[in-house]
């Protein structure tokens, strides 16, 4: 199934790309459009619950020799941003803890961040990595 259809507008100037909203979120679409905004003006609209439509209009300084490769580049970029979104979803919690931990020990934060930061196994060892790296607590 072609999830990403594309056509040219009747005047042949714009490139229209259909995007499956089940694969590419609105935020991902905006991030993709952001990086194409140097060469194109980008309009997005939801056709229905399943499909979004992106219209890329080349800026005056931009020549589009091969619309198919522009479409490929847009879809590749969108899929990469979709992957980044999934990574973000899976790791944002641990990232927050990591940064809180890093800066709590630099004295930037007034309070210790909530959560468990050590490794229980390492902590139990008298010469464990946690003991070596951990800052002395008052």
């Amino acid at each position, binding site marked *: 199934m072609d999830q990403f259809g594309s056509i040219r507008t009747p005047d042949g100037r714009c490139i229209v790309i259909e995007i499956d909203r089940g694969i590419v979120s609105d935020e991902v679409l905006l991030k993709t459009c952001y990086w194409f905004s140097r060469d194109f003006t980008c309009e997005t609209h939801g056709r229905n619950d399943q499909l979004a439509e992106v219209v890329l209009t080349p800026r005056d300084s931009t020549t589009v020799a091969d619309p198919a490769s522009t479409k490929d580049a847009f879809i590749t970029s969108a899929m990469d941003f979709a992957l*980044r979104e999934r*990574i973000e979803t899976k790791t944002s919690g641990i990232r927050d803890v*990591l940064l809180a931990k890093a800066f709590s*020990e630099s004295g930037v934060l007034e309070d210790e961040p909530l959560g468990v*930061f050590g490794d229980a196994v390492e902590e139990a060892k008298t010469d464990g*990595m946690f003991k070596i*790296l951990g800052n002395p607590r008052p």
Partner: protein
Amino acid sequence: MTREFNSLERFAPAPPKFHLLPFRFTRLNGKELLVNETGEFLFVPTGTVHRLTDERLDTGSALYQDLKAKQFVYDESSSPLLDILATKVRTKFDHMCDGTKLHIFVVTLRCEHSCEYCQVSRQTATRGEFDMSIATADRAIVMMMDSPAPALTLEIQGGEPLLAFDLIQYIVPEAKKLAIERGKDLDIVVCTNLACVTDDMLLYFRDECVKVSTSLDGPAFLHNKNRPRPGHNSYEKAIEGIERSRAILGMENVAALMTTTAASLDYAVEIVNEYVRRGFHSIFLRPISPYGFAVKTRHRTGYEIESFLEFYKKGLAHILKVNRGGYRIAEVYTQILLTKILTPNSTRYVDMQSPAGAAWNVLVYNFDGDVYASDESRMLAEMRDWTFRLGNVHKDTRRTIFTGDPALQLFRASCNQSLAGCSDCAFQSYCAADPVYHHATQGDMYGHRPTSGFCARNMEVIKHLFSLIDENDYETMHILWSWITGEQVTREVVACA
């Protein structure tokens, strides 16, 4: 990557499940390049990121072990080892510690050169009203010492600061006296074109441990074209000044910087050769700044970023060739970026920091007492844009400067972690936010990355460096590492060249 150990299955069963740690990625040279929160990276086959997010990666594979070792994943047999990761993150942000370290004193706007790309609005050499007053110098010294940083650098510049040598003779001992009282280390550098330097001045610098930084744009024809002065002898004066400075201060206390103008673009090799001929061991292939006079004269001195990148790559290739021939010379921009890419450390180079170094790590005290967030901020003020004037030494304290609206506006746009286009970028850990540049070039401190010259330059330079890393040529990597560590390239490596 080859491994000489037995497979993991010989020692322990592969873990059934793994979890992701935060990372960003991009595609380069037909591979995926993964970079984690601490700047550690790994080239992996295309499709790896997809398999990682789907949790379909073979946990018994060598690839999985590499990902685990570089802390892109963890499993039940390991722990997230957050303490180690947090330590690495903190090390990456080390430049934020302590407060402002670099303090630039603009002691005069007077100058006898009339460089087209000059970053200040120079005044004629006789107009003394553009000199810093003693009262302003006193206040600026106190404000500098109010920084919590235990080690400070005082950079004295102009205009041509040697035209106000009596003021230098006042500032240096006063700053030293207060530094001793406050228990701070103090480095002092004078940025001068050396055209009017005398032996008496140099003897004073020697006795006061003051270093000299000068400009050398390349061979005579190029330097004199870029840096006109009465007599058309800027190059001859600079070379003579460099030699006398070295004789009195020592080689290690005299540095040179070049600026790349449109006229420089065809002469990357000649510029590098000039630095080698003059015995320098570092060269900074710097693009022209889009500020000050460079804006007025950009039709003559400016160029597209693509032209600069071509110049940089050609220059870097030649520098590597010179190193292979046995002469050690480092390219400073490459050195800075590689330190960020290949080591856990941050660098003190204020133009490539996030949060941005402007104000946080550098303050500029203009001759009239106005305090700016960076040298570039002051250049904007010379173009009647005072956005980054943070205050004045006669009216403000360090606290009011750092809590005032100009500083707070600047700080809001200072973290590339939260900027559109940067927040997802694989190179975020190595790159920077530059609100002053983006305000100057795009009228918006936050900037628009797809059309940003700053982004285009850094993205392309970092990609180029990663391509060199991926090629993993033994000699090249040995040379690049020597720039980071400061160690000499061994005879064996030179012999391979």
